[in-house]
């Protein structure tokens, strides 16, 4: 967000939050201001006590002083003082979210970003850099953008874009960042977890993607409201935005089928506010996209976390492969050797009510009839915000996005082979439930290569039918390949990067080197109907 808008946004968000909290406190079902402030103080003090805290001592002391001051003032506060305290609290949170944004960096980042990312993603062994020197390595071969790219470019002229990608890895945001650059669009604003800012490598990209700071340790309800309101403000001011509607990286490797609706809901709010203010180009376009990798950098940590007993999984992971630059380089090098590509697949654009949008930004119903979408938010002819109504609209939108994710999900060679082998191992160990199979690897731990290859051919036929029905996408490399070639390539991938191989060849057999990883990669097919049954 540019400096002029930044100040405006802080004022705007603070005033919306204060006004809404005041209104809410008057309702019989609402929260009194004293309670709201007390809750916030409690949550913040609890956070400051927690040991697992990456903030510096200085920042922590400053925070503590601030909350002590609020706490001291609270018992004697009359109504106007309460409002003032609420204002101070909101302003502190909002200012932190908006961050120290440097507009100069923002301008130049567009040029710097791709080169930096390019260097990162191209194999960084010294010999390769020297061989390529002085030519700047290109990303063209590493990241392939497919789908409705032209529509996206046109829509960016007609209104404001909310891009909603699937989320597997911390590499997702730089990959999207590059794709946006490649499409000739300005950087998108993006709410990034504080832990990404503390990663020296990524901090650079984060700032320049137009990222604002989200501290997921802050649990106070008012903080979450502020994040939503700021996100809405960004859209209203015409800043294209990026959200991961899955909320966090997929732990299981499964495609997101249930989405978080909080931030998605800002689309309807922003659109209505734009209509109320009679803004030029008021529309918000929601563009789902999928990011598809052969291997996922953090797969081992993520799936381990997923399989932990319920309740022990971590929402914020700070010590994964991503925090280790050597692992990142290994990963990138491995993919480089195999000429791996990251596929960014842009899907059908929707309006905030879940209707299909064409490249001119016009909405259409299921029968192809044009819709005047302003009518969705009209009450007695006047655009009106109605939270309950808008939540239902957002439900519709989230269903459509999830469907589009499913249709744009690209099955890579690694997913296909993992699915085939995992299913075969499940069938060979019929008495074992999932957790025992994962834990023990099964009584029968191998499968004959010949059988695997035949099974790959058979499943491929079904996937091709699904693709023809528009229900899924397949990695282009798979076209015309047979089971032998497919298995061979998948095994090469599984050998390159992870500490243990998901699958490996032993003579004329295939064995699982790491059941959890195998499970992680096969999970990309969960939810599709194969052999007459939904994969679970």
């Amino acid at each position: 967000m540019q400096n002029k808008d930044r100040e405006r946004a802080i004022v705007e968000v603070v005033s919306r939050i204060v006004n809404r909290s005041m209104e809410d406190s008057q309702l019989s079902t609402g929260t009194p201001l004293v309670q709201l402030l007390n809750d916030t103080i409690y949550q913040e003090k609890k956070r400051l006590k927690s040991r697992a805290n990456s903030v510096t001592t200085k920042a922590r002391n400053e925070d503590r002083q601030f909350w002590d001051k609020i706490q001291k003032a609270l018992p004697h506060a009359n109504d106007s003082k309460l409002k003032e305290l609420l204002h101070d609290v909101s302003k502190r949170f909002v200012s932190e979210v908006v961050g120290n944004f440097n507009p100069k960096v923002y301008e130049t980042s567009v040029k710097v970003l791709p080169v930096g990312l390019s260097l990162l993603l191209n194999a960084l062994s010294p010999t390769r850099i020297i061989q390529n020197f002085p030519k700047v390595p290109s990303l063209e071969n590493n990241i392939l953008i497919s789908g409705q790219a032209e529509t996206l470019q046109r829509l960016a002229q007609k209104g404001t874009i909310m891009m909603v990608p699937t989320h597997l890895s911390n590499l997702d945001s730089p990959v999207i960042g590059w794709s946006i650059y490649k499409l000739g669009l300005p950087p998108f604003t993006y709410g990034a977890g504080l832990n990404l800012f503390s990663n020296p490598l990524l901090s650079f990209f984060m700032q320049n993607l137009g990222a604002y700071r989200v501290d997921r340790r802050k649990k106070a309800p008012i903080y979450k409201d502020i994040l939503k309101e700021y996100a809405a403000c960004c859209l209203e001011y015409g800043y294209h935005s990026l959200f991961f509607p899955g909320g966090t990286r997929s732990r299981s490797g499964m495609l997101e089928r249930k989405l978080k609706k909080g931030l998605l809901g800002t689309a309807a709010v922003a659109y209505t506010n734009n209509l109320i203010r009679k803004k030029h180009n008021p529309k918000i376009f929601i563009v789902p996209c999928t990011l598809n990798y052969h291997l996922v950098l953090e797969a081992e940590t993520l799936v381990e976390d997923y399989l932990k007993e319920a309740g022990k999984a971590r929402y914020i992971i700070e010590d994964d492969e991503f925090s280790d630059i050597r692992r990142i380089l290994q990963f990138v090098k491995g993919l480089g050797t195999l000429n791996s590509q990251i596929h960014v697949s842009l899907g059908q654009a929707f309006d905030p009510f879940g209707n299909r949008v064409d490249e001119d930004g016009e909405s259409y119903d299921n029968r192809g009839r044009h819709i005047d979408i302003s009518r969705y938010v009209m009450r007695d002819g006047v655009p009106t915000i109605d939270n309950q109504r808008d939540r239902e609209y957002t439900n519709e939108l989230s269903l459509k996005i999830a469907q589009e994710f499913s249709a744009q999900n690209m099955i890579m060679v690694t997913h296909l082979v993992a699915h085939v082998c995992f299913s075969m191992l499940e069938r060979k160990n019929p008495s074992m439930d999932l957790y025992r199979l994962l834990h023990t690897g099964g009584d029968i731990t191998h499968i004959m290569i010949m059988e695997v290859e035949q099974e790959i051919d058979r499943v491929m036929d079904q996937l091709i039918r699904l693709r023809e029905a528009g229900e899924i996408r397949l990695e282009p490399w798979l076209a015309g390949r047979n089971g032998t070639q497919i298995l061979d390539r998948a095994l090469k991938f599984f050998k390159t990067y992870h500490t243990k191989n998901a699958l490996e060849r032993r003579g004329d057999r295939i064995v699982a080197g790491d059941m959890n990883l195998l499970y992680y990669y096969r999970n990309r097919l969960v939810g599709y109907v194969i052999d007459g049954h939904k994969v679970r």
Partner: protein
Amino acid sequence: MSNSQEFISVLGAGSWGSCLAHRIAIKGYPVTLWMRREEQAEEIRTTRRNSRYLGDYELHPGITPTTDLKEAAKAKIIVIAVPSKGFRATSRELGDYVKPDQILLSATKGIEPKTYLRMSQILKEETACLKIGVISGPNLALEVMQEHPTATIIASRFDEVVEAGMRIFNANLFRTYGSHDIVGVEMAGALKNVLAIASGMISGLGYGANTRAFLITRGLSELIRLGMHYDIDPMTMSGLAGVGDIFVTCSSEKSRNFRVGKSLGEGNTLEETLKAMNQVAEGVRTAQAAYDLAQKFGETLPIVEATYHILHKGLPLTQAQMLLLGRPMHYEHNPKRIIRDELPPK
């Protein structure tokens, strides 16, 4: 900005559609009643009677009959009460005219064969509207016309729709209750018609109240089990749209589905029965959908299955009865816990 006007439309001038228009008019709202046949519209216009469906009952003068769908589609709230068979076609036509700020309320009960969609889902597919709701409850059209006190449910995911629907209908003799469980209300409303046919058969066969109570309660548990696959709130099934509606359609001669069952119980064929009635019995179509869904989810629903086989596969009633009553013993709420029968010692 808005071209939707301050009147309310009802689409479909069968007994229920006409009755609903009558109720809205009593509340004092101008109401347009749309139908396809001009003669019927003319009859209502000149005599205030809809003789084919409501006999001699006089309709409120606040009702304006029309055959012009485009005109009817300008209403702020549109109630759709056409038979489920023509529901999609009417919805699609309606979709040419309605705008997203209008409210659609379905009064039709049923599940579309093959797609297994509920009526509200068809409205969503065929129009750009999202503010959709349903009305359902223990409401026999003739009794509502006679002003026997009763109640109904207005269900929608949208508060705005629930509240608007309640306001246009609520009266001392026709109380309205709100619900967010639109899926539960629609499932109950559709599936209960299958039970009504089965219950009619019981009367036709000459059985009494014990047998009916047995059928209704076991049938209800089948409906709940099927509904749970759609994440419905089980409380909905025990409410007005569930037990309330089941109670009335399974016990009253005024229920069309009940009459179909009774006629079958008396030994007539389905063809003869339907020919003799000049109205639609939704349960015949719904039995097929309910049977298919039970198969799809792997649920054992003995009453639904037996009714389906009688209606669509020519299974003789006596045989169906034997199959139902000869099922193995099990715990009431756990059909999987089967008890083996044993012969007494000699």
